[in-house]
């Protein structure tokens, strides 16, 4: 029995859903950010799986993953800098306490 495309897609959908759950349920700014990385990883698995199963010797999916990683690296650098700035100003990591723009 071989592994089919559906198996990979289900796995990446589950990873993505777990990332969404972490994004919605966690109360910690850093953990919310980590959940975004988990979602990106789930999407990367989808790209590579499609590239492997649907196209003969295609590397386009791999290149998409490459660019996703590039953007993720830039996003992590800027996002963590924002987190540092926020924590310096408000002295908390709890996202419930960051309600300056509420109402």
């Amino acid at each position, binding site marked *: 029995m071989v592994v089919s495309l559906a198996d990979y897609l289900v796995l990446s959908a589950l990873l993505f859903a777990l*990332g969404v759950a972490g994004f919605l349920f966690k109360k910690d700014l850093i*953990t919310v950010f*980590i959940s975004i990385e988990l979602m990106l*990883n789930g999407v990367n698995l989808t790209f*590579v799986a499609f590239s*492997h199963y649907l196209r003969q010797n295609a590397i386009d999916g791999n290149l998409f993953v*490459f660019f996703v990683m590039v953007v993720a*690296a830039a996003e992590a650098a800027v996002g963590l*800098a924002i987190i540092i700035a926020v924590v310096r100003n408000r002295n908390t990591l709890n996202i419930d306490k960051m309600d300056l723009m509420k109402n």
Partner: protein
Amino acid sequence: MQLALFIIFGGLALAGAINLLVQKAPIHSALSLVLVMGALAVLFLLLGAEFIAFIQILVYAGAIMVLFVFVIMLLNAQPSEPSRSSRIARWLGPPVAGLLGIILAALVASRYHRVPANMGQPMFQVEAIGNALFHQYLLPFEVTSVLFLVGVAGAVMLASRPDEAAQNAPAGHLAETEAISRKKGAGA
């Protein structure tokens, strides 16, 4: 063999993702994300994407996660105290999320189950990726470098101490105005 590897490392990735959700301390979540990334790198190898697998280890697990752990240690992030969430979210959230997962899985399993595995010839992937990157995808690649430049500048600007900047800026401003007024005085 392939199925066994898929089950082992797919399960490992899922376990890491669930552990990421369950853990209270951010450092434990970050370390379980490293586990997920390692397991995914093995899955990428199974899918014949060696380049992506190694980049996953080097860039993601090596660089990005080190940045995360560094910031977690810098901010001394403690386990977060559970706060009150809305009751609707608590009762309706898990069933809706489970339903969504089931629908997704059923949809995917029904439509793509008969796609045959691609058993093409092995190729030198890194070479092909380099060629594509510098011919077909040259413009996105160059835009990427601009993105990184902006990212570096933004990160440095955001993470620099605001009080330090505030101290420097008025000092320079004052010196300037003093010089101007002195000039004016000299002229008068």
